[in-house]
Each structure stands twice: as structure tokens, then as C-alpha cells.
């Protein structure tokens, strides 16, 4: 009998013990893009008006819109192929915290690009996706609104950083203290047989 891991197509979908290739790819590509977004955003914010800042922010906007699209697809995939169940935790409050922090991560990843898009529109800077097409302006240019949206966008970035730190800490806590498969099942090229699941 062939196990599920022997059929490459089945590896795409999530399994009871680990995330499949599609969910893992979404996760790590979005991780990489969010890291790039932080670098571009913080770098640009520190610069005076210049061509470099224009290029950094144009790239920031293109990547932000890409993240939005990937998160929408990722949520769709999550509906189609449900994630493996949460492992046991010492107290129900941890389950609740995990759920809340995951919802918050998705909410931030979806809302930050929209706030950024609004910010660009309010700043009279139409968003172009890598120069291939332009997004419609959501609001008319408005200096006060732009100021407020920038503050919101930046505050959300720090909140995202805090939740990401919590997320990483929780994954390490699962791996090192609880010794379960929560971290391994999202890592490529690993086996999740810590709990003795048959290969």
C-alpha cells in the first residue's frame, strides 16, 4: 500500500500531521515578502524626498498588493484544504491565544495593504503594480487623511512585528518545551514523526 507521502500530488494538500507544499509555500513566501516590506518601509521613512525613496516606496506598494493577493489565495486554499488540527496545549487559554493571534496576523496582512493603498490615494500618488497596471484611487487627495493613514499604517506595522514575535516564540515554545510537531509541520524537508506517527 502506498502511503500519502509517496504520491507527490497529495503532498500539495494539508495532511493531518503536517502542512502540504501549497500551504508551506504561501507561508514562507509571505514571510519573505513581509521581511522585505519592513526593510523597504523603514528605509524609505528615513529618507528625504529622492529618487531612491520613490523607487523604495513604489516597490513597497507593489509588494504590498502582492501580499494582499497571496493572503486571499492562502485563505481560499485554507478553506479547500483545512490545516492540521492544533495539538494539545497545557491550558485552553493557549488555544485561544493561538487562534486570536492567527486571526490578527491574517487581519493585519489583509488590512495593511488596503490602508497603504488608501494612504497612496490620499497622497495623490496612484499605485502601480510593478509598472504593469495602475490601481484606481480609493479617495481624493487629502493631506490630513494621508497624515492619519500614515500613522495608522506605521502603528499596524509595529503591531504586526509584535504579533510575529509572539508567533515565533510560540512556535519555539511548542518545539523546545512542549516537544510537539507544530514547528516541524510548517518546515519543508522535515519529517513529522515526533509523536510516533507512521511514515
Amino acid at each position, binding site marked *: 500500500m502506498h502511503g500519502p507521502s509517496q504520491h507527490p500530488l497529495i503532498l500539495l494538500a494539508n495532511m493531518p500531521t503536517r502542512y502540504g507544499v501549497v500551504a508551506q509555500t504561501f507561508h514562507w513566501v509571505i514571510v519573505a515578502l513581509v521581511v522585505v516590506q519592513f526593510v523597504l518601509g523603514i528605509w524609505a521613512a528615513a529618507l528625504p524626498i529622492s529618487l531612491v525613496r520613490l523607487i523604495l516606496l513604489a516597490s513597497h506598494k507593489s509588494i504590498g498588493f502582492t501580499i494582499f493577493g497571496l493572503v486571499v489565495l492562502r485563505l481560499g486554499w485554507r478553506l479547500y484544504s483545512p490545516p492540521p488540527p492544533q495539538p494539545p496545549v497545557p491550558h485552553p487559554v493557549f488555544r485561544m491565544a493561538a487562534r486570536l493571534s492567527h486571526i490578527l496576523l491574517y487581519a493585519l496582512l489583509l488590512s495593511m495593504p488596503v490602508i497603504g493603498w488608501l494612504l497612496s490615494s490620499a497622497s495623490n500618488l496612484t499605485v502601480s503594480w510593478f509598472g504593469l497596471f*495602475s490601481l484606481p484611487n480609493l479617495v481624493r487627495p487629502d493631506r490630513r487623511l494621508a497624515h492619519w493613514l500614515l500613522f495608522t499604517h506605521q502603528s499596524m506595522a509595529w503591531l504586526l512585528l509584535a504579533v510575529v514575535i509572539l508567533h515565533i516564540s510560540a512556535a519555539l515554545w511548542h518545539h523546545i518545551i512542549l516537544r510537539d510537531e507544530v514547528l516541524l509541520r510548517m518546515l519543508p524537508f522535515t519529517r513529522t514523526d515526533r509523536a510516533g506517527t507512521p511514515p
Partner: protein
Amino acid sequence: MKRMMVPLLLGLVGLLLAPFAGAGCWVSVPALSHIEFSTTQAGAPFQGTFRDYAGLVCMDAGGDSHIRVSVNTASVDTQLPELDTALRGPDFFGTRRWPQALFESEAVRPMGQGRYRVTGKLTLRDVTHEVSVPFTFTPATDGKARLEGRLRLERLDYHIGLGQWADTRWVGNQVKLTFSIVVKPAAGK
């Protein structure tokens, strides 16, 4: 009541003369006019306006026409204060050395049906090129008239955007100027 009669009568006279106003001179009414420019940034459309300018238009059927438009380049408004400051700076308009952009022409050719083509000299910074601009001249019933048209130019031809800003991939070289200027008969005519 009597005080209102004079302007009312003048207005009426203006109304009657409007169709024959071709020989007179007109001055711009800034509150009703706008001069916009559009280009691209990072591949997306980008617009701005000039708030302060003055236009004098003398149209004469006998061929003695004259158009002069001066724009106070420091009045550039892109709704981005930081960018406006940069645009006033030496890499763009250099408004301290060259406070005015100027268009001057004595060659206005009627094309029929209220359409004209004006050929003249456009000066931005210290660079002058000849440009030819089609426009419409539409008299209104209140004695005023509207000039509308557009002009395409390449900003680098006029040294707009020096140094890092000479890049045309991120800051478009093509600039479209759109004007809609309401003019009224010049005083003393």
C-alpha cells in the same frame, strides 16, 4: 438700484459686443481657470496644478494677434508639500532664479469653428523651445470666453529634473499640460 444700473448696462453692452470681440484683448480670470500638468511616477499617472499665472490674449482678425501666458512656477501644487518644495528647488523649476515660466506668441492661426493653433516660444528655466499648441476659443454669453487646449512636452528638453531626477523610468519624461483659461475683456478697451 441706480448703483446697480451701470454694471448692468455695461454687462449688457459686453453681451452685445461679445460676438465682435475678436479684435480686443482679454485677460485671464484665475478663479475660473486652471493649468494642470500630468506625467507618471513609477508608471502610474500623476497630476499637479499651477495656482498662479496671468494670461493676456489679443485676438485680431487682421493677423495682429498676441498671446502671453506667464506662470509663477513657485505656485506648483501636487498636494504633496514635500514634493512641491522639491519641484521649486534647483533640480526642477529653480524658482529662485527663474520665477516665471513664459509662453509668448504672435502667431495665432484660425482653424475654423472656434479652433486655433498658436505657435510661440515656451520658456522654462532658461531654456526656450518653439511649441505649437491647438486650442479652442469659446465666447460665453457673459462677455467672457474660455481658452482650452493641451500641449505635450518632454521635461528633459527644458532641464526639468536634473541629477537623480533625470531618470525617466521612475519619473516620466512626457508631460501633458492642460489648460482651461477663462478670459474677460481687458480693462481700458
